[in-house]
């Protein structure tokens, strides 16, 4: 092993091409992963901050918030199901927002959420009518504490009381107010979607931890099919575009990993061919194939680690310099670490293709002992 590391130290140029190519692949992997995480985060934040176990839609909603309506009677049925600890209403309205300091036609896409069971990061009691908390991302749109925005064609005013982080929905910034604020704004701006008192779009359900197993099925059974209950994870996966984004990006990431494996396999196969005579001599003086192959693997791992470290640094720099609200890129520690692990594993798999070549090197060839 010392031999392999010493070779890298004394002949760094020999490994430069592989390191450069793997570094570019590492940057690509981490950029793609960061984009995927950013896109998913910007679509699902409003669900991820929900302080509940289940999201309950109306039975005919096809798991879409926009098509869902829960009447007060159904809510009462849900509240009475054994195992349900707390229930909160949720309503949304996607509208254009006019922000002071921006042009009259320069609308900011906004999703207004009404709630009564506080999501994480929001006060337990919803703010008074006409006031809201805004998602952090809206700061980049000139939204500040005290700003009064006008929502929708009716120009319904809402005043910002503070900010909440990571609560975006459908790639848009959100504002969070009471269910009354939501109904007022919705009814004023979307006559086609008016809702009566007590009506919400979905319910956030907290289960009693002792009896929460099978809670979704019990709720849907007790309402006679008037509801469709999903875990938060299922609800996130059912959001339009989320699973498609994941699938497409994961396929691109998969192809990139395959390319990394091929690059490492080709590079170390060439290196092994170059070293045939050297390995023959080492085998002749008593080195085992295992010792030699461990050296090859070690070199591949070192190259992959260097590439990963540069990739991580590049991803962090990108994350810092990309202006908020432009490219949905997030460099999370989990993504960076998993990308590095994937690259190292790809390097090990790639150099495994050299194993047969190393095994086949005949020590007798070192002194011309084979015909």
């Amino acid at each position, binding site marked *: 092993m010392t031999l392999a590391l010493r070779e890298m130290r004394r002949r760094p140029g020999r490994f430069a091409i592989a390191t450069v190519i793997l570094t570019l692949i590492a940057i690509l992997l981490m950029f793609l992963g960061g984009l995927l995480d950013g896109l998913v985060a910007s679509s699902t934040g409003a669900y991820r901050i929900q302080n509940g176990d289940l999201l309950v839609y109306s039975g005919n909603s096809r798991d879409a918030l926009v098509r869902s309506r829960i009447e007060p009677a159904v809510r009462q049925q849900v509240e009475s199901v054994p195992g349900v600890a707390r229930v909160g209403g949720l309503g949304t309205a996607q509208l254009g927002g006019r922000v002071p300091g921006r042009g009259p036609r320069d609308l900011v896409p906004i999703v207004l959420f009404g709630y009564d069971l506080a999501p994480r990061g929001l006060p337990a009691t919803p703010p008074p009518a006409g006031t809201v908390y805004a998602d952090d991302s809206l700061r980049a749109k000139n939204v500040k504490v005290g700003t009064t925005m006008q929502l929708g064609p009716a120009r319904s005013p809402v005043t910002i009381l503070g900010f909440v982080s990571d609560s975006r929905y459908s790639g848009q910034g959100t504002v969070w107010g009471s269910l009354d604020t939501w109904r007022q704004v919705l009814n004023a701006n979307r006559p086609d979607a008016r809702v009566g008192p007590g009506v919400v779009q979905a319910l956030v359900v907290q289960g009693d931890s002792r009896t929460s197993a099978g809670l979704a099925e019990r709720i849907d059974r007790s309402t006679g099919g008037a509801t469709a209950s999903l875990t938060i994870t299922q609800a996130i996966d059912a959001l339009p575009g989320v699973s498609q984004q994941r699938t497409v990006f994961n396929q691109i990431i998969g192809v990139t990993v395959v390319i990394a494996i091929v690059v490492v396999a080709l590079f170390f196969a060439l290196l092994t061919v170059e070293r045939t005579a*050297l390995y023959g001599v080492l085998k002749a003086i008593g080195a085992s194939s295992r010792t030699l192959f461990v050296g090859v693997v070690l070199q591949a791992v070192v190259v992959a680690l260097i590439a990963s470290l540069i990739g991580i640094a590049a991803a962090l720099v990108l994350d810092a310099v990309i202006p908020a609200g432009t490219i949905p890129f997030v460099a999370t520690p989990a993504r960076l670490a998993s990308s590095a692990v994937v690259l190292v594993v790809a390097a090990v798999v790639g150099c495994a293709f050299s194993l047969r070549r190393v095994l086949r090197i005949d020590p007798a060839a070192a002194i011309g002992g084979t015909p």
Partner: protein
Amino acid sequence: MTLVESIDTARNALEMRGITKIYTVADDVVVALDHVDLTVASDEIVALVGPSGSGKTTLCSIAGGLLSPTDGSVVVAGKEISDYSGRQLTEFRRDSVGFVFQTVNLIPFLTARENLLVVDEIGRRLGRVARDRADQLLEELGLADRAANLPAQLSGGQKQRVAIGRALMNDPSLVLFDEPTSALDSNLGDQVVHLIRNEMKARGTAAIIVTHDDRITHYADRTVHIEDGRIAK
């Protein structure tokens, strides 16, 4: 085996009995060695000479555990190695024999000292003991001031001396030299042959030197001729 034979076996660095090596290349059968017997005493230097293709390198490879014979018995320093597995042969080469190759074959990115220590790195890892032995060998071979030089910074003769040092690192019973002077001019070749004899005799180590070089036959205790895979009588 009688008591006298047993004592002789213990004294001998190498005993080969009825060694046959047959290669099958495509549909052709090549008999490289044909019932060869060879004994080398524990401090004997044997020059093995013969024309190209006569089987001398194959004989040397079998004696050093690089190849297994098709038939026959090989005993090196009292160990019967003809039935050894690949793994056992690897350990045997690491612990019991030394090789000096025709093209020297030092590891180009290691210094002279590190080229000696590589034997320890792939072997038993004796650490300080191995480092002390490497330093001692370099001193004895007149290379103490070249210990930190890479092979590219050494002359042909110095490289050959480093290769000899590497072959002696594991304190072998038998050292196999493959044409050690073929790449050297006559003056340097003479020095190297002289050095080989001195080092082997000083350590009581046996050596087989595969050669075409007449000077070596003069320094050897015995010359063995091989032709068409048979030892000439």
